[in-house]
C-alpha cells in the first residue's frame, strides 16, 4: 500500500483517478474511447434487438387476448408476472439454454418489454372506431387483412405510445445485461458504481439518456411518417 503514493505522484493523476475523481473528465473520454464506443454500440444493438423481439412476441399475445377476452386477463397477468421476475433469477435461468451470450440478454429484455407492449397493442386495437371496422368487414375484408390494412394503422398512435415507453425502459434495462457480461453501457455503469468511478458512471448514464432520446425521436419520426392522416385532424 505504501507503493500507492509514489505511483500516484509519478503518474501525475489523471482527472479520473480515484484521487481526483472528477465527474466530467475529457481525459477519460480519450483514454477509454474504444471501450465507450464498443459499449454504446453493444447497448444499442441489444436494445433494438430486444424491442423487436418483444414486439414479435407481444403481437400474437395481444391478438389472442383480443380474440379470447376470457384469456386476456391471464395474458396480461403472465406478462406482469414475467416482469416481476428479478433479473438475478431470470438470467441464470436462461444461461443453460443460451449460454453467456447477448442472446440471453435480448430474450430476457424482450420478455420484460411484454408488459408494456401487450397492453398497448390490445388497447390500440380496441381504439379502432367501430364504423370503420364495420365498413371494412362489410366490404369483405378478412380478419388478417382487416388487421393489417385497417386496424393496425388506426391503432398506431396508441401502440407507438407503448413502444416509446418500452424502448426507453429497455435502454435502461439493458444495463442488467452486465449480469451476463452483455450489458453495453451497463458494464461501465456497474463498474462505475462499484469503484466509485464518477467519470465512467456519468458518461455511461448520459449516453444511456442520449440513446433513449435518440431512439424516442426515431420512433416519433417514424410514427409521423406512418400516420400522415393524423395531421390537422384537430380543427
Amino acid at each position: 500500500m505504501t507503493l500507492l503514493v509514489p505511483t500516484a505522484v509519478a503518474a501525475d493523476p489523471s482527472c479520473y483517478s480515484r484521487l481526483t475523481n472528477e465527474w466530467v473528465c475529457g481525459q477519460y473520454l480519450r483514454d477509454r474511447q474504444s471501450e465507450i464506443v464498443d459499449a454504446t454500440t453493444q447497448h444499442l444493438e441489444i436494445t433494438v434487438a430486444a424491442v423487436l423481439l418483444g414486439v414479435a412476441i407481444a403481437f400474437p399475445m395481444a391478438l389472442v387476448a383480443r380474440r379470447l377476452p376470457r384469456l386476456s386477463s391471464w395474458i396480461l397477468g403472465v406478462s406482469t408476472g414475467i416482469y416481476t421476475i428479478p433479473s438475478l433469477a431470470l438470467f441464470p435461468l436462461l444461461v443453460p439454454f443460451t449460454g453467456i451470450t447477448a442472446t440471453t440478454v435480448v430474450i430476457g429484455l424482450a420478455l420484460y418489454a411484454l408488459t408494456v407492449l401487450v397492453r398497448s397493442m390490445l388497447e390500440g386495437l380496441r381504439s379502432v372506431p367501430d364504423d370503420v371496422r364495420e365498413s371494412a368487414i362489410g366490404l369483405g375484408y378478412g380478419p388478417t387483412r382487416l388487421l393489417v390494412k385497417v386496424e393496425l394503422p388506426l391503432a398506431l398512435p396508441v401502440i407507438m405510445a407503448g413502444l416509446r415507453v418500452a424502448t426507453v425502459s429497455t435502454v435502461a434495462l439493458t444495463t442488467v445485461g452486465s449480469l451476463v457480461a452483455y450489458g453495453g453501457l451497463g458494464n461501465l455503469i456497474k463498474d462505475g458504481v462499484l469503484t466509485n468511478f464518477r467519470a465512467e458512471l456519468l458518461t455511461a448514464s448520459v449516453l444511456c439518456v442520449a440513446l433513449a432520446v435518440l431512439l424516442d425521436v426515431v420512433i416519433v419520426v417514424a410514427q409521423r411518417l406512418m400516420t400522415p392522416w393524423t395531421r390537422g385532424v384537430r380543427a
Partner: protein
Amino acid sequence: GDNLSNGKSGSSPSDSASSGSADKGAVHIAGQNFPEAQLVAAMYDELLTKAGYDTDVKLVDSRDVYMKTFPGAVDVVPEYVGGILDYLNTTQNGAKAKPITTSDAQASIEAGKSLLSEQGITLLDPSQATDTNAFFVSKDYASSENVSTLSDLKGKSVVLAAAPDCEGRQDCEGGLSGAYGIDVTKVLPLGYASDQTYQSVLKGESQLGETSTTDGTLESQGLVLLDDDKHIQPAQNLVPAVSSDFLAAHPDVAGTLNGLMAALTTEKLTQLNGEVTVDRKTPADVADEFLTQAGLV
C-alpha cells in the same frame, strides 16, 4: 446475435507484438466482474493468447451465472479456493451444509476433491496470493477506540456494512459474532468493497466495513484494515479452475497458468489492484506490465 462485441473481451493490446505459437484452438474464460477478477482474467487472457489460444473472456456479475456453463461452454475460470469450494458445497449439499473449507488452501482442496471431480473441474496450483474477506474501520475510530485487530472489538456494538450475503456466514457476520464475540447490531447490505460501504463507515453510519485483503484503496480513503487474528477466513488463494476435459485435451494450459500463480503474491496483487482502482489504469495494461516485468511473456 452473438456477434455483439463485449467491451471487456478480446485480447490485450500488446499481443500483436510477440508472435504466438501454432493455433491451438479456442479457450473460453469466464469470471466475476470486479477489479481484481478483471485484472487476473486479463492476465489469463494475455498468457493464453501468447500460448497460441484463441481466447474470449466473459466477466459476469455472479458466480451463479458462469457456473451454469462451467465446465462446458466455459473452459477456464480465475477462481479462489474457498469461493469455488463453498459454492459447490452449498449448491450440492444445500445452503446449510457444513463448510468444507479451512484457512489452509491445500487441505480445503483435498476436502473438496470429490465435489470437484463430480463436476468435472480441476483446480491447478493455488497461488500464494490470497484475497480473503477483511474488515476495516475508519482511522478516527481506530484511534479513539484503540483497535487494530478484530479481537480488539470484542464486546463492542457495531453496525457492519458488508456484502448482501454476509449475515450468518462464518467468514463474515457469523464469525465476527461467534469467534470474536463482537456485538453486530445490524448488517447493512451495501456491498463488498463497494463505495457505499466505504462511505457508510466514513460517515459513521456503520463502524465496520467489509472488503478484501487486497484492497488497494483503503489508505487513500483514511480507512484501516483490522487483523484477522483468529483466522476465521478460509483460504482464498487465487487458483485457476479448469474444465477437466479441456485440461486433458490441452495439458499445456496447466503449465502456463501455474507459472502465473507462482509469480503472484498478495502484496503484488494489492499493488496491481491499486493501479486499477486508484490510478484507473485498464486491467489489460496493468496485466501486461506485470507479465512483462515478471518475464512471463
